[in-house]
């Protein structure tokens, strides 16, 4: 048994396999609904309506997509250079922490200065959080998958410590949460009256910038070369270690913006339920987008839609909301397989 490269895959292959993957995901999700005693068509309908059935639903989906675009970009940038950053969750909280540190009154600057300062500080903090594992990788050869994963737990405990200690909101009635941001530290809504904040626009801009970096700059070329073939990159004189560190800084910074945007745009304070796993979901987002930054936007909206839709379906039909996670994990696995099958043929000889 072996895999044979297909020189020029047919259009049928290119569209067919991903379509089958998507169909499989839907069929699998439907059978889960059936298992839960619900009508699968009704369930899917409810998910769809909950995600995009009204202006409110649609805006909710876009709001939910915003942090996913950031974490998806963070993962896409890192994975492209084969830097396995599974720590977007930790970087997100680092960003959120900086937003709270600067935005709860420590700086009395006007909005136009304060918000960029918060965003910048967030990016810096996220970048530093990933710099550790990246340095361990380039200097000592320590696998970054495990270190970034473990950092997620450390960071969450660290935040928990702060929220029960120095950052605890005195008005929070004992809840482990921070004080609220001052009004000047809040990201305004894009259109008055519509519940969508500027974080979403920032995410779109970030996606475009990442795309430009990857396709038009020498840094992007270096990151792709290091990811595709480290040995050849080294031979060509590309400073592999430095490129990995730069990639880490960019990736960590992007993930941190998710935390900044959630705190400054949506929540207004920091608590331990800020992220329901946005960092991990970012991996699904990035993989479904084939690591393409523009694709990340689309796939983040899709993934957010599934979550938002499943939440509202769960309330109406009683199917546990974890159906969304199962469907997305299925979509991830079937899609990587489908993409491989567009490029390779399995031969039994």
């Amino acid at each position: 048994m072996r895999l044979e490269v297909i020189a020029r895959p047919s259009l049928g292959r290119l569209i067919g396999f991903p379509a089958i993957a998507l169909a499989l995901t839907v069929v699998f999700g439907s059978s889960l609904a059936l298992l839960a005693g619900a009508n699968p068509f009704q369930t899917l309908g409810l998910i769809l309506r909950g995600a995009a059935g009204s202006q409110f639903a649609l805006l909710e989906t876009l709001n939910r997509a915003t942090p996913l675009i950031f974490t998806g970009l963070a993962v896409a940038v890192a994975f492209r250079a084969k830097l396995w950053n599974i720590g977007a969750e930790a970087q997100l909280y680092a960003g959120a922490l900086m937003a709270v540190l600067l935005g709860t009154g420590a700086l009395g600057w006007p909005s136009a200065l304060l918000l960029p300062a918060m965003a910048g500080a967030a990016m810096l903090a996220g970048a530093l959080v990933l710099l550790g594992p990246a340095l361990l990788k380039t200097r000592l050869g320590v696998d970054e998958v495990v270190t970034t994963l473990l950092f997620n737990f450390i960071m969450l405990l660290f935040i928990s410590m702060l929220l029960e200690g120095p950052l605890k909101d005195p008005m929070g009635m004992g809840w482990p949460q921070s004080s609220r941001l001052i009004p000047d530290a809040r990201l305004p809504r894009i259109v008055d009256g519509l519940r969508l904040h500027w974080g979403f626009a920032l995410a779109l801009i970030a996606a475009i910038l990442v795309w430009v970096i990857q396709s038009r700059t020498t840094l992007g070329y270096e990151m792709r070369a290091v990811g595709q073939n480290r040995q050849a990159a080294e031979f060509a004189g590309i400073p592999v270690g430095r490129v990995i560190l730069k990639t880490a800084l960019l990736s960590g910074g992007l993930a941190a913006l998710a935390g900044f945007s959630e705190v400054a745009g949506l929540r207004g304070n920091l608590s331990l339920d800020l992220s329901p796993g946005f960092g991990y979901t970012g991996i699904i987002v990035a993989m479904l987008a084939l690591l393409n930054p523009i694709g990340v936007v689309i796939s983040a909206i899709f993934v957010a839609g599934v979550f938002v839709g499943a939440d509202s379906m769960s309330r109406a039909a009683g199917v546990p909301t974890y159906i969304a996670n199962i469907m997305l994990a299925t979509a991830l696995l079937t899609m990587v397989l489908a993409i491989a099958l567009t490029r390779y043929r399995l031969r039994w000889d």
Partner: protein
Amino acid sequence: MAPDSMAQGPVLRLDGITKRFGALVANDAISVTLAPGEVIALLGENGAGKTTLMNILFGHYTADAGTVEVFGQTLPQGNPRAALAAGVGMVHQHFTLADNLSVLENVVLGTQPLWGARLDMAGARAKLVGLAQDFGLAVDPDARLGSLSVGERQRVEILKALYRDARILILDEPTAVLTPQQADALFAALRKMVAQGLSIIFISHKLHEVMAIASRVVVLRHGKQVGEVAVSDTDPRALAEMMVGSAITQPELRAATPGPALLELRKVVTPDRGTTRGLRGVDLALRAGTITGLAGVSGNGQAALADLIAGLERPSAGEMLLHGAAPAQWSVAEALGAGIARIPEDRHKTGTIADFSLTENAILERYNQAPFARRGWLDWRAARDFAQSVIRAYDVRCPGPDTRIRLLSGGNMQKLILGRVMELRPQIILANQPVRGLDIGAITFVQTQLLAARDRGAAVLLISEDLDEILALSDQIHVISEGRLSPPFARGTMSATDLGRWMAGEGFERGRDAA
């Protein structure tokens, strides 16, 4: 093992074997028979279909048509176990050995029932030691495989087949990694095996070896069986023409006009890196207008020398002079800046990035320089134009500059690498195994380019394991052994046998490696 009554019939019969990979016909109705105690050679260029045919015999591939018979029994297709059980043993060109296991473990692997309760190591050791003695293939059963030399590894690979009671031995390019003397020793061992009734298929593209060991030669070309002759009825020239399909034209050789030394190494030492041996006090001068050949068994420091010149390694002691002056810094960037053209040993792993387009691969060494980049921004139009010009000038056969380089043949890949460095008219050229694995057309093309560069005044370092290639192209030859370099030998002063002695480490005076 074959019953004696069948000893008269052929031990092996390949009948009408056909194998296609997509549009490529790798084997087109090939038929071969092998008599007991016979040695036949399978001769053909790289890509002629020799390895594919043997992979079918061994059960790694299934044929689209044709049958394989061993001792009169038809072998089921695609089943290496059946081939092994029938007594077919294969000595792969790329050894199928695990570095972190011991010699004994490598030999025992797969020979005892997988679900057996316990490995019988004592019995295995006794059998292995016995075989090693019988055939003069001495090896330490407890040595970790990774610590063995290439020659010793090949012995393990052969012992592995003998351990499984192989009656038919297939050797795929077995001498590619050996000195001429080691090759002779191998031939002696093979003759012992033949005397004990083993039959051998010897795959090679080296004519004098084929003439020396085989009684019959089967010639393949582009997947077709183009001839089958007894060695007594032919000569190397006729075989060569049969193999290539036309009279062979050697690249034209003009007298060298040596100039000043462009790159000089004085007592250079580099550290060992894992399994890569470093250099131990190397003196070398690459002169303008000459080709310097570096002969040696692989793993003796060639990689360290190539890395040093390519800018990937720095001397830990000794001096390196470029155009007479020691460079202040030494890295890939400095090497490229000094105008060193680098043709790496492995075009797939180091020379190119498989999923990058030809354009992206063409600018790999200069992606951050004008005209391809300005202040960090890439100019894809300039890059594409450059790729186009290389494709045209160096006859790279491809659908276009946007094609992923993975889809090109080895020869065309090498032409792109050659073009990308030669377009700058380099003064110093590092050519590490530049023609390995290429067909004759591509070989001639690459060698002609190297000779042309030398004739316009470039200094070329040619690293090769193929002594014929070294002897044909080099104006002076060094031999490398255990990180030490022999004195230079001028063209025509050394025979392959003489070089073989140096390759085996003879002639290096003692104490020199104390540095």
